């Protein structure tokens, strides 16, 4: 993948400690993210889909430097972010922002919206006068649809609804004109009737700012909506198992895990729902992430399991269709 990558993960591994049973139990290391390669180009959108616990948030946080990888690299504009000098590192941090999943936890509860949105601009000294900051905050709040801005900027987070809070978090993230934004399950905690509003806002901002996005979600429908023109990556127990153009990946999934996920997504169409059958897995429940099966981590559930092959060595991503990569021995 030798195009103009803005941000790249190279053989990225993040290990976490997990204390097993009880107070006296020994802690074990396990790979939250294992040997991941991912590159996101300028202005490109990548949806990262996976179930809870698969490592998608950890990967997202590693990409913006919030978690230091155990091994492997994160490259920003081709340079290792953990080897940048002070000034360049600051510049990277300004350009890499995150919108967290839970707008009830991500905003400072005793600060007003005005302070929350302007904090970054102050820190990076983007504007010289308070008047400039104020007009910028007003502009940002208007952009994210919190009208009238003068009313909302004096509110505390607890006075806002979940959807409004998420809009504040978005305003904060874009306040520094970042080139790369990680949006982590940003609509999961939002009421169903308000989700599309938030997604449409972010899509519009993407056009306007030209930033790159890593859009993390467990919902294929949302992933497809947001990254219709971009790529989608599917993660399972720390590995990216499939990545390709979103529409191709959803229309013709290659990895057995992606196939089974897509076959299990409920569809809002009663006629179609009757004909859809879930792919039969050998085991419904995922293994404990601390002790995954040897070889391909999906091998103990996969209906296409090949003994002596899948349980020996973990498969590498191969280009099975143009631009569409899959880590599976079937291809």
């Amino acid at each position, binding site marked *: 993948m030798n195009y103009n990558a803005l941000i790249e993960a190279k053989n990225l591994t993040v290990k976490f400690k997990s204390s097993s049973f009880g107070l006296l139990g020994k802690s074990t290391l396990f790979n939250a993210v294992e040997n991941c390669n991912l590159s996101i180009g300028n202005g490109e959108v990548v949806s990262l889909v996976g179930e809870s616990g698969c490592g998608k948030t950890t990967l997202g946080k590693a990409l913006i430097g919030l978690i230091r990888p155990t091994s492997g690299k994160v490259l920003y504009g081709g340079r290792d972010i953990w080897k940048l000098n002070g000034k360049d590192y600051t510049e990277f941090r300004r350009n890499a922002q995150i919108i967290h999943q839970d707008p009830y936890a991500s905003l400072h509860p005793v600060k007003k919206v005005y302070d929350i949105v302007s904090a970054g601009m102050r820190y990076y000294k983007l504007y010289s006068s308070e008047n400039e900051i104020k007009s910028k905050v007003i502009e940002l709040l208007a952009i994210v649809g919190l009208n009238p801005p003068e009313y909302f900027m004096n509110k505390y987070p607890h006075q806002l609804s979940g959807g409004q809070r998420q809009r504040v978090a978005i305003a904060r993230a874009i306040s520094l004109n970042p080139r790369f934004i990680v949006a982590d399950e940003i609509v999961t905690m939002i*009421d*169903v009737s308000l989700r*599309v509003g938030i997604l449409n806002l972010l899509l519009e901002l993407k056009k306007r700012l030209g930033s790159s996005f890593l859009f993390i979600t467990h919902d294929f429908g949302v992933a497809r909506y947001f990254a*219709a023109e971009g790529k989608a990556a599917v993660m399972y127990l720390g590995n990216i198992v499939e990545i390709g153009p979103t529409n191709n990946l959803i229309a013709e999934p290659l990895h057995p895990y992606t196939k089974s996920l897509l076959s*299990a*997504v409920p569809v809002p169409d*009663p006629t179609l729902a009757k004909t859809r059958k879930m792919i039969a897995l050998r085991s*419904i429940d995922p293994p404990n992430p601390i002790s995954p099966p040897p070889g391909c981590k999906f091998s103990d559930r996969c209906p296409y399991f090949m003994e002596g092959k899948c349980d020996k060595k973990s498969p590498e991503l191969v280009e099975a269709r143009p631009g569409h990569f899959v880590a599976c021995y079937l291809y």
Partner: protein
Amino acid sequence: MSQQRLFSNIYSVKNITVEYVMRNMSVKAVNNVSIDIRNGEALGIVGESGSGKTTLALSLLNLVPPPGKITNGRIIFDGKIDVLTLREEELRKFRWKQVAMVFQGALNSFNPVLRIGDQMLETIMEHENVDKEEALERISKLLKLVRLEPNRTMKAFPHELSGGMKQRAMIATSLLLNPRVLILDEPTTALDVISQKYILNILSDLKKKLEITMILLTHDLAICTELVDRVAVMYAGRIVEIAKMEDLFLKPKHPYTIGLMQAIPSVIGDVKELKPIPGSPPDMFNMPSGCPFHPRCPYAIERCKKEEPYLEETSEDHLVACHRWREI
């Protein structure tokens, strides 16, 4: 024959209002709701958080927690039991024996320090006069029905099971006393899609095998297509539309239902631009006048601001609470 028709509703809910009273304020979490629940059907109750679906379900068991209070209405079970007048001892028998509920987040409602099998056994022994052999037999039969391996599951502690397995064990537990109605509050919300689909399959299986009435509470319209026969849509404490599941999806009539349908990003069909429902869900302390949906409704007229619409029959088995359903 007429006798049977008379009792074909397992639940007849009339004008139920549930209020939460806090100091000098009161909030109507459920506002004048009437619905007949048919024997043997699977009913979906769809609504966003705060729409009153859980409170409505709790009132079916006369289990609304204080400061909540059922301030109006009647609930008749099986044509003869007046649920709201039952005494504490009668209620204890009614709950679980007649109607069982799997609560939201039920994954964590097992006692963490007792084995699953012991907890299930205790439930039977507490309520029924059966010997242990028979009780164990029943437990293992139910665990098989929810596709769990009985011996292993009974010996397991809750933490040894995955989320999906715990939820299945919970469903089996709720069925221990052969209830006639099973209420499931967001049973798949905390689970991944594969476990979700699996549980929905199991539930539709159970429905066929046990001839049980199911009430499924969910915020996700799409999962209704997997299981339910009829859907009731709730908004701001009211039921705004009730229809057969197919009818609701193919011919939704209430503007809120239509809005919800247009706001689901799907994995099928073309990627269309989705339209959000404008505005936000109402502030329960400060309800809009007239139809509670009117500030967000693209079809609202003067009348909607003044007069609250009530459910009316628009076609067979399809009720809508909207002044303008004929024109939409």
